[in-house]
């Protein structure tokens, strides 16, 4: 059981390592989107500090969506997805492994880049820590919920845009609690409540999303 899960994760990480170009695209997308905001809004430090957490979080949503539509699509095209579906292990384990791998490949780099971007927005040190912490709890949610969208739109024309349309509304709670936690630090109102709600949402996604996306995969591959 666990062995299968680890094999799926190792395989996807290995494949991402072989295709570093695709991987870098998503990371630079994140950096660039965030850097566009000061250019559009103006360099006033107080204003930047207010919008900073929200901007970084929204950019994280977009960056994870950018790489999501290929979560199953590549394996679907070359037939390896079929082979994995036919393996003796439960399909929910496959989708869970895929989502975890997506988080390792695309989520963890975001955590490392985010503080640098936070500095651009004049965030104080405690807020930077909170930003990383909230992203650490929040980005797995993005990968998990996103796997549902990726499975539903498998093999469809315009899959990428469609995934965004389907999944973005579901990201709303993660965005509110995640960006809210950082803002709680900035305004001094505390952020424990935000973090625990974000954690609860993560637990729920972890329990439900792999099952749903397994069902979605079955429907799409049929």
């Amino acid at each position, binding site marked *: 059981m666990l062995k299968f899960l680890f094999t799926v994760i190792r395989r996807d990480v290995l494949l991402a390592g072989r295709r570093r170009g695709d991987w870098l695209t998503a990371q630079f997308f994140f950096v660039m989107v965030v850097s566009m905001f000061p250019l559009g809004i103006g360099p006033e430090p107080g204003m930047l500090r207010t919008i900073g957490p929200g901007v970084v979080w929204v950019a994280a949503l977009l960056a994870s969506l950018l790489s999501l539509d290929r979560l199953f699509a590549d394996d679907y095209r070359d037939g390896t997805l079929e082979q994995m579906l036919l393996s003796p292990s439960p399909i929910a384990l496959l989708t869970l492994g895929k989502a975890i791998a997506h988080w390792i490949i695309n989520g963890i780099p975001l955590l490392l880049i985010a503080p640098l971007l936070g500095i651009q927005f004049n965030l104080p040190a405690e807020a930077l820590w909170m930003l990383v912490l909230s992203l650490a709890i929040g980005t797995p949610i993005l990968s998990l919920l996103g796997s*549902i969208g990726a499975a*539903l*739109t498998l093999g*469809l*024309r*315009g899959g990428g845009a*469609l995934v965004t*349309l*389907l999944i*973005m*509304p*579901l990201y*709303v*709670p993660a965005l*509110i*609690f995640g960006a*809210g936690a950082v803002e709680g630090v900035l305004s001094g*109102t505390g952020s424990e409540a935000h973090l625990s*709600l974000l954690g609860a*949402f993560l637990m*729920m996604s972890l329990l*439900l999303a792999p099952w*749903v996306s397994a*069902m*979605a995969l079955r*429907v*799409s591959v*049929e």
Partner: protein
Amino acid sequence: MNLYHYASPSTFYPLAGKLIPWFAALAFLLAIAGLYISFFVAPTDFQQGEGYRIIFIHVPAAWMSMFIYVVMAFWSAIGLAWNTRLSFVMARALAPTGAMFTFVALWTGAFWGKPMWGAWWVWDARLTSELILLFLYVGVMALQAAIDDPRRADRAGALLNLVGVINVPIIYFSVKWWNTLHQGSSVSLTRAPSMAQTMLWGMLIMALAAWMYTIAVALARARTLVLERERQTEWVRAQLEGQP
């Protein structure tokens, strides 16, 4: 198996055809009664003047937008559990009407907000949730439109619908939470200062009219869908002899 009898498309089609005029008539009569109450019975509000009469459509539309999403999820769950095609058809037939009511709720919310808050749009918890609900409707319809195979479209839409319905309360809660932190508006659209008995009645009757309308329209849409999907069967070919 009585239930399965009604779940068969060839039984459903003529039955729905007979029911639609009745529901449409009921919707019409109830709407007339509701409009009469909203304009001629309900008194002028001492705080908001005549502008508050918008709530006679705004509130029923907002109710409907949420109810319809839940009803869609109900049909989706039944379809996935028992593999009944008609349930998927019903879920699909409800979606555009639900989106329409969501749009109406947003539009009337804006038209109510302008004179009351001085802005067409405020990020009030209810309006924001309603907006996200509209996104959810659009998502389901876009997904179903993008898939050519009806079997896959039905199932994929149903799954998304169920995920959405689990998420709606969480989204609503999170938006409300966000709203209270950011000092939302003090006036709420649905908690009018004096919820008089007549106003409640007016809204209930309008909501009932909207229900009847929804049933009539959804049945009509489902009929067309059934016709398209069952086009190779004998009974559809026999139907085509008559008038549309």
